[in-house]
């Protein structure tokens, strides 16, 4: 199958405009007759649902949480990027586009990445108008700060709670449209399967998480906005409920999965302290604006950090990457931390961490300034660890974070199933092999608010004449029956091991072989191990309770069943890419200095996997760099 990215004609600056000029429009009276299902209500889902409803479409929005306000966009701390050039420091749309493309190690689509930068400035206008209390100067204008991988200040923020403030603005806009009866909201509802009729996405099967019953919903198009899948590692910075099931079901129904192995490991999370741990809390990358990362120069140094003199500290990021220093991009900062920890320089009780130190910043700017900038992050650190980071350095460690991979989408954000769209983190589009900090909130918002509402019409215009789908179609019967069989099977195993047991095992395999550093041998071994784990799960898992009630154990079980299969695909994807790029670091492919070695001649493509009865067929979208020549990515 030829993957048509549908990138429009023209220069980079004109592409989005040209697309909109040629796209089909729908008159307001007809929009009312068209219905859209949005699965997920985070920044991209809520933004899409609210905006599509404002345009006049009939919207149904689903989320597994008790309210749209819980979606994990809420947890993004540091900020959102926009090419406003308010700081007069040489920023522009083009520079932001280039930083993002380079940050992604030239493995994303030029046109999409440019559009992301192009739409960033109006997005800030939008959020300010929605009442987001961004940080301000005394004179009343907006403040910016820096983030990793760039040398300008283009990040807007609301203390360390930027994601929360953007999400709450979107949530408010969504509930405004619910109040206006333009959106029907279904909280505590989880998509269990996708319904495809005559090759087009026409509905979903949902499990009501309170009654446990399966329900059917039909629409003229389906939008997935279900976020990332890094909980495949079990320990991650994600919310416990985040899962990959909606993506996986869509994948099994024909949506290609792009670059599944491109997973970002965030350099500044709190280290793991025990096996029982359920979550790795993130400390915002913005801390690297003022905090300095170091380890002792001496191995197994057991002195307290304050007792280690300056000359015996190794500020390894500043040493290895003098021009970007502590603001090196995430993949590079994470790998550098792993390198030091593996070499025996790790600190903390389990020797699995590095220091993030604010001593110099406090001396330079004063305690009050640092409190003003990061107060809530320091408070959070204290609540979790019991340690005061104003007086002793933070202990930080890399943790699984963002999924650059996701469902393959074209320029219109449509997957390979007509009528099925993917927005926000759950698609693969703009970040390539590594995402820059503060581009995640941006992409989720831009997809939901600005792009999808201007592309979905191009598909729906042709659906006006078609009969609206109804839930008594045989495909709905079939999908519901399959979902029921799947759940029955899980409940009938009655084995001897808990769901969490299997999740811990999966997480260990994935973290060991498919995280910061990968090898051919390790990945081949991991695939076999996960296959064995899958057999064991389906023979020996134990889930108590019934289907027709609130049953959190059953929810965990069917999500994990999908994670196990996704884990196999992630390893398969990492195995086929005989190069290192961005977050994908294959030990066999590195420079003499230990940096990633890209192989553009062979691997300048997006891998897009087709599901084929338990096997995966590889398709390639070749990346054509029409405007930018890929270079060796250097932050030295």
């Amino acid at each position: 199958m030829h993957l048509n990215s549908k990138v429009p004609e023209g220069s980079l600056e004109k592409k989005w405009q040209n697309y909109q000029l040629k796209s089909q429009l729908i008159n307001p009276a007809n929009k009312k007759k068209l219905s859209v299902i949005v699965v997920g209500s985070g920044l991209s889902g809520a933004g899409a649902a609210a905006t599509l409803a404002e345009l006049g479409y009939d919207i149904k929005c689903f989320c597994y949480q008790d309210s749209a306000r819980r979606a994990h966009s809420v947890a993004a701390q540091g900020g959102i990027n926009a090419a406003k050039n308010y700081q007069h420091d040489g920023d522009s749309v083009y520079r932001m586009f280039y930083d993002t493309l380079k940050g992604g190690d030239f493995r994303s689509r030029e046109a999409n990445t440019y559009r992301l930068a192009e739409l960033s400035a109006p997005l800030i206008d939008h959020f300010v108008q929605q009442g987001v209390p961004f940080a301000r100067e005394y004179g009343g204008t907006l403040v910016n700060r820096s983030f990793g991988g760039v040398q300008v200040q283009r990040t807007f923020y609301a203390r360390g709670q930027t994601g929360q403030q953007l999400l709450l603005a979107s949530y408010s806009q969504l509930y405004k449209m619910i109040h206006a009866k333009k959106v029907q909201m279904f909280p505590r509802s989880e998509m269990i399967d996708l319904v495809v009729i005559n090759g087009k996405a026409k509905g979903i099967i949902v499990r009501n998480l309170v009654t446990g019953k399966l329900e059917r919903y039909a629409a003229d198009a389906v939008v997935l906005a279900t976020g990332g899948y890094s909980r495949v590692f079990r320990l991650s910075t994600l919310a416990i409920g985040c899962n990959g099931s909606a993506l996986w079901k869509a994948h099994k129904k024909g949506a290609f999965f792009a670059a599944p192995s491109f997973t970002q490991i965030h350099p500044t999370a709190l280290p793991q302290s025990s096996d029982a741990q359920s979550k790795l809390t993130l400390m915002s990358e913005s801390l690297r604006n003022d905090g300095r990362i170091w380890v002792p120069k001496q191995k197994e140094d057991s002195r307290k950090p304050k007792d280690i003199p300056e000359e015996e500290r190794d500020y390894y990021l500043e040493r290895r990457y003098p021009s970007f220093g502590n603001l090196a991009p995430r993949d590079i900062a994470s790998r550098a931390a792993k390198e030091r920890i593996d070499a025996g320089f790790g600190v903390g009780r389990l020797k699995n961490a590095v220091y993030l130190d604010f001593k110099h910043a406090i001396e330079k700017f004063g305690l009050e300034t640092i409190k003003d900038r990061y107060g809530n992050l320091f408070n959070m650190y204290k609540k979790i660890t019991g340690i005061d980071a104003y007086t002793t350095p933070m202990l930080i460690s890399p943790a699984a974070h963002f999924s650059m991979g996701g469902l393959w989408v074209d320029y219109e954000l449509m997957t390979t199933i007509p009528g099925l769209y993917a927005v926000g983190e759950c698609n693969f589009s703009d970040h390539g092999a590594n995402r820059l900090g503060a581009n995640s909130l941006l992409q989720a918002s831009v997809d939901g608010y600005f792009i999808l509402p201007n592309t979905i019409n191009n598909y729906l215009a042709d659906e006006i004449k078609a009969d609206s789908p109804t839930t008594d179609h045989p495909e709905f019967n079939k999908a519901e029956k399959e979902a029921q069989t799947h759940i029955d099977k899980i409940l009938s195993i009655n084995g001897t091991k808990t769901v969490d047991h299997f999740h811990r095992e999966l997480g260990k395999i994935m973290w060991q072989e498919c995280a910061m550093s990968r090898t051919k041998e390790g990945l081949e071994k991991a695939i076999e191990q996960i296959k064995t784990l899958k057999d064991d799960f389906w023979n020996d898992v134990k889930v108590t309770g019934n289907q027709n009630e609130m049953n959190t154990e059953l929810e965990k079980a069917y999500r994990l069943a999908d994670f196990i299969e996704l884990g196999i695909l992630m390893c398969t994807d990492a195995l086929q890419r005989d190069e290192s790029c961005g977050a994908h670091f294959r030990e066999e492919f590195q420079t003499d200095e230990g940096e990633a070695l890209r192989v553009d001649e062979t691997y300048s493509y997006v891998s897009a996997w087709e599901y084929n009865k338990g096997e995966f067929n590889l398709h390639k979208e070749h990346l054509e760099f029409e405007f930018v020549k890929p270079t060796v990515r250097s932050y030295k």
Partner: protein
Amino acid sequence: MKVTFKIWRQENPNAKGDFKSYEVDGLTEDMSFLEALDQLNEELVLKDEKVIAYEYDCREGICGQCGVFIDGRAHGPHANITTCQLHMRSFEDGQTITVEPWRAKAFPIIKDLVVDRSAFDRIIESGAYISSKTGTAPEANSIPIPKEIADKAMDAAACIGCGACVASCKNSSAMLFTSAKINHLNSLPQGKAESSNRLNQMTYQMDLEGFGNCTNTGACEIECPEGISIKNIAEMNAAWMKQKLFG
């Protein structure tokens, strides 16, 4: 360490609930309170019993989905944190810990420790927004907002919607929640146009949902994970009075 959890179990909204005790051993001080409950649930599965239903999602204190009453206090023994941020080092070895759901008429119990907080969503949808459609915004720096005002709006906007304020109030009042949202939007220039309508609609909905009124005990601001001040309530009441007196 070893503790005994005395936990409220209730099959469904209509069933009669009761406390049940569970002994859990092998815990460590570094474990979070919810991780201790996770361990208990794993043990229950292996004993062929139904797991305890309790809520959580982000486990980093920001989503607001977790929240239970622990030994008579919302989110446990410390002020200004969420349940997911509570760690076992805050308890003694051998301690009995009583765990209950939020108790408020407007938050009916769904199962065990899970309550229905959709009343909060309905207060939000009655007016906690600025009516500007996507695509209609002016340039962001065209309306300067002095730092003090932006900071004050942010203080109020930090609410995570967990419901601890309602649960710890003897009147089950939602006035901290409602006033914080009103003040966040009404203090910003963008929110001014709809300020009086917002005040009326949101307080009307708050009463309709069956929440009580504030009698200034201050329990809410102590338990609020974001430490939102009850000054917000005073400000909301003042705005309301002003409107009644002067229109």
